Every structure is written in C-alpha cells, then in structure tokens.
C-alpha cells in the first residue's frame, strides 16, 4: 500500500523518512500509528521535539548538550575537577557515564579530525579544551576518542596540544572485549592489547 504525495499524511511520511534508519514502509507505519494515537500523546511527541530544538544548547565549558549555561556534570561540585575525559560526541559521554566508573569532568569535541575528508582542527572544539587547561587545575586529560583512523588522528593532535601545559595525557586502553575468545581477535587489536598489558 502506498499513500499519494499530496495531503497532510503524505507530508508527515516525507518528514519521517528523513530520519536515520527509517524507510518508506516504516514511515507509513509510524504515521498511521500516530494517526491512531490519542491526540495528547501525539502532541507530547511534537512538543518534546520542539523543546529539544529550542531549549538545548552546548555547555559553555565542555560543549556537552545542556539545558542552561553549564551542563549537569560541570555544575556538579562533587565531581573531580582535576580530570577531563575527552570524547568525540555527546552520545559517547553518556555511554561512559552509564558505567558509573568515571567521576571527573568531560570535554566534547563535537567531531574528529579526518585526513581522508580534510577535517582539520578548526572543525572540532579543541581550542576550547586548551582554554580550559589555561585556566589551570587540570592534572589529567584522558583521551577517549574512537579507535578509528579519525579518532587516532584526533588523539595524536590533542596530545601535542596538551603536553606543553604539563597535565598528564592518557589514552583509553585498547584490547580484547570482555567475553570474547582471544583467537578471534584481529591482528591490530591483539598487538594493541599486548602493548597495553598491565601488571597484576
């Protein structure tokens, strides 16, 4: 079944198709679901989208998504303000936060360097990180960029940028995922996991 290109329903389907991972059929299914849903419930969704687009800003300090001048982590006095963990995207920050294993502050680059795409330092929030280091008080910067070519390029560049400030620069460990058989690990992961071994 298909819906013609005219009318309000077709317009909703066209907008839904633009979302990642949503094809024509799924968009139609979602549109008809919204049509059948209670008016209040459907409008709550519309209101939530509007609120996100109009209410969210970037934290002035760490560039995470925030609802005010500072994000929830930068506002929290109980967090360790001497450690900054650097991530590429806000989604990575929340993945790390879910573990509950890090109590320091964050810095979100909103991108990564890419020699293949010509994305340079002016496209990421690296200078803002330097500004935070200039303010003093930071003892360690942990680089948690992705273990891809872009993430590695970013980590190398940031290391050169941060070192002169005297703070310790560390990189999150590479290695075998928990629960995996070592024999199935690829060559690069294996070498990196041996290089990054630690004493017991």
């Amino acid at each position, binding site marked *: 079944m298909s819906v013609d290109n005219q009318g309000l329903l077709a317009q909703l389907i066209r907008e839904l198709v633009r979302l990642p991972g949503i094809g024509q059929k799924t968009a139609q299914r979602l549109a008809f679901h919204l049509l059948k849903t209670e008016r209040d419930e459907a409008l709550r969704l519309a209101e939530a989208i509007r609120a996100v687009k109009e209410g*969210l800003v970037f934290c002035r300090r760490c560039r995470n998504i925030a609802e005010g001048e500072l994000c929830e982590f930068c506002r929290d006095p109980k967090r360790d303000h001497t450690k900054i963990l650097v991530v590429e995207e806000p989604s990575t920050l929340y993945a790390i936060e879910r573990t509950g294993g890090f109590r320091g502050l964050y810095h979100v680059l909103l991108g990564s360097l890419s*020699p293949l795409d010509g994305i340079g330092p002016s496209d990421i929030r690296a200078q803002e990180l330097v500004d935070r280091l200039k303010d003093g008080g930071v003892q360690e910067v942990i680089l948690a960029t992705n273990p891809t070519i872009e993430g590695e390029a970013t980590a190398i560049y940031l290391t050169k940028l941060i070192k002169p400030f005297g703070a310790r620069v560390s990189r999150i460990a590479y290695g075998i*995922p928990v629960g995996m058989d070592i024999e199935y690990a690829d060559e*690069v992961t294996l070498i990196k996991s041996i290089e990054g071994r630690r004493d017991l």
Partner: protein
Amino acid sequence: MSLLKTPAITLRSRRWGEADRIVTFYTLRFGKLRGVARGARRLKSRFGSALEPFVHCDLNLFEKANDHLHRVTQADIQESFAGLREDLERMASAARLANLVNAITAEGDQSSRKFETLLAGLRALQAGHDPGLTALLFQVKLLELSGYQPRTDHCVTCGGELHKTGEAKGFRFSPMAGGLVCDSCAWRRPDGGLVLSPGSVAFLQKAGQLTPEALTRLTVAGPMRRELDTTIEAYVTVVAGKRLPPVDFLAAEPREPAYEAKRWP
C-alpha cells in the same frame, strides 16, 4: 548472487545505519568496489579493524545482482599498516593516495599494477620514507597508471617543440591541458602559467618510468619540490574534478558545524 574473493586495500570506510559500515575497496581482481559490512561497528564484530582505511586484507564478498553495493562477509588482515595510524604526516599522505585512487577510478575498473603501486606507496610510508615526497612520487605513478601521465616531451596542445621560458628558464605547465605547453599555446590558455624547471620535468619523466618499488630512490628538495607539489596538486584537482582534502589537513578550512543547537557566545 556469487562469492568474490580477492586481496583488497580499504580506501575509505564510513558509518552507515545503526552499526554498519559502507567500505570502499581497491581490489586486485575486481578493481574498485563498495560493500556494506553489517554490524562492523559493534564491539564484537567479526571484522575487527580489518575494514579500517589503508588495511591490506583478503576480502570475501557476496555480489548482488543489479546492485553496486556488495555484502562484505569476511576480511582477514594481511598488512595492517598500523604504523600509519601513529603519525599524522604519514596518515595524511596515505589518505591522499587512497583519495586519489578513489577519485580517479571508476567502480569495477581493474588494474593489478595500480593495486601494487598503491600497496607499495603504503609500504614506503610505513617504512618511514619522507611522507610528503612519497605522496608526491606515488601520485605521479598512480596518475600515469590511470592514463593521466602529464605530457612532457612536446606541447600537449599543438604538438610543437617546447622552449624554456622567462627568467626562471623553465617550461610552462597547463593542468587543464594535461602537460607542458609551448609559449604560443600558453598565451592562449588561462591556466598555462605554472612554471616547471628542467629538473622538475626530468623528475616527472623519471617518476613515470620507474617501478613502484624503485620510486623511493628519487629525491627532490627545495624550490624544485615546492614547484612540483604545486603543479601536481593543481593537476590532481583537474583530473579528480574537485579539490581533494589537502595533504596538510591540519591547515584545512573550517566546515559547516554538524550540530544545529544554539551556542554560547
């Protein structure tokens, strides 16, 4: 639906959907092709780092009828070129070679010599040869193997004799025409102003003749290196039909931000 097996070099790899990647390869047996690797970004993906750019691997793909996008089923690393990921200059030069092959090769255009040349270029970078010079040399060779060798024996426009010109006593190179142009043709071409010294012309000729393995024996420095860099950059832009990301990507111009959220001043 048939199974394809071939040695391959990853040219680029981009995120797709929830956890997939679309990967562009230059393969030994089938030339350039693209494939989707399902689940490649998941933690326990069977591909591991085998689909990262510059990796030389043995590739298995399923070819789907009437679809340019193959399905990647297996990739076993032959050479990871891990050293290229630890140095920005070497990484950027490797990226230039991969971008050039990607830009000037049509899908399915097979050339074992081009494959071997790209591989030799990555090996030279991994071995620690000057990254900028290696990128220059292998770009010249890859252009030659793709049918874009700049003409340097006669005027590329009229076929006439070439004469050294101006105070620099050099030859004029026209990127749009694809080689050296004589004085009378240079005046008629808007881009005929790049001057190449006789030494640079000899360098280009030699780089086109040498085998990929012997290429790194050639060296060039100083003003000659600068004029060759400028000339090849201009020529690559014409051949590729667009400006490729610069070798010095750290000086790249800023782009539009990916996020639309409001910013604090």
